[in-house]
């Protein structure tokens, strides 16, 4: 029996990219990145509690260009998800649901995420790498 041709929901690609949908999917993507980063934090703690060799090995990975890049991506992802999470919690209590406000807080979150991640790495790189 042939499947009945049911109406399909509009495909994602026919929509013009919008700040609302873009930030929504980024929230989910950064959530996944943070979840993976969380496992690395657990692994790091296990390493700190283990022998010196494990710790040195851990430090070498973190200090490499790949380690720094991963840390940068993780920190940016964490900062964004944290800020956008505040936006979600405010929506949960019914604040800022008007579309103009949603767009405004969206741009605010992007600006703050870039600013705070920049500030974090400025402090990290000037504060105590050596």
């Amino acid at each position, binding site marked *: 029996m042939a499947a009945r041709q049911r109406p399909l929901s509009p495909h994602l690609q026919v929509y013009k990219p919008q700040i609302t949908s873009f930030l929504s999917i980024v929230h*989910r993507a950064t*959530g*996944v990145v*943070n*979840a993976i980063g*969380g*496992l690395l*934090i*657990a692994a790091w*703690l*296990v390493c*700190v*509690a*283990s022998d*010196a060799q494990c*710790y040195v090995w851990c430090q070498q990975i973190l200090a490499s260009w790949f380690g720094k890049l991963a840390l940068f991506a993780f*920190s940016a992802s*964490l900062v964004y998800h*944290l800020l956008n*999470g*505040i936006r*979600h*919690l405010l929506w*949960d209590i019914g604040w800022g649901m008007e579309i103009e406000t949603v767009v405004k807080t969206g741009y605010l979150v992007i600006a703050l995420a870039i600013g705070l991640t920049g500030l*974090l790495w400025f*402090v*990290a790189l000037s*504060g*105590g*790498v*050596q």
Partner: protein
Amino acid sequence: MTDMRDPLATARGLGSAKDGVNHWWMQRVTAIALLVLAPWFIYFAVSLIGADQDSVKAAIAKPLNATLLVSFIIAMCWHARLGLQVVVEDYIHGWQEITLQLLIKFIYAIAAIAAIIAIGRIVFSA
């Protein structure tokens, strides 16, 4: 419109999955906890840049830091597990979904337990 639901089901408010709003609510509760704990963790991590193993252990062993770190690990693993569960529910179906859902539960439970044991070892041997 006639409501065909049993009034008792409405009163219990648990829905067909039998856990009501628990998932949604715990995601918010852990989110609020992480609003405080995650910035603290970032601050803590940045303060440890360049530190040797003994200094890191000494920092973790401080009672306040150890408490916040364990809280952070629990809230983070819980929140991550709830979040990943929804992502898998949305995009993956069939036996792969069940397998992944179980894996996610186990991985985050083990990650939390391993991290807490590590913190405990550091605290009690400092």
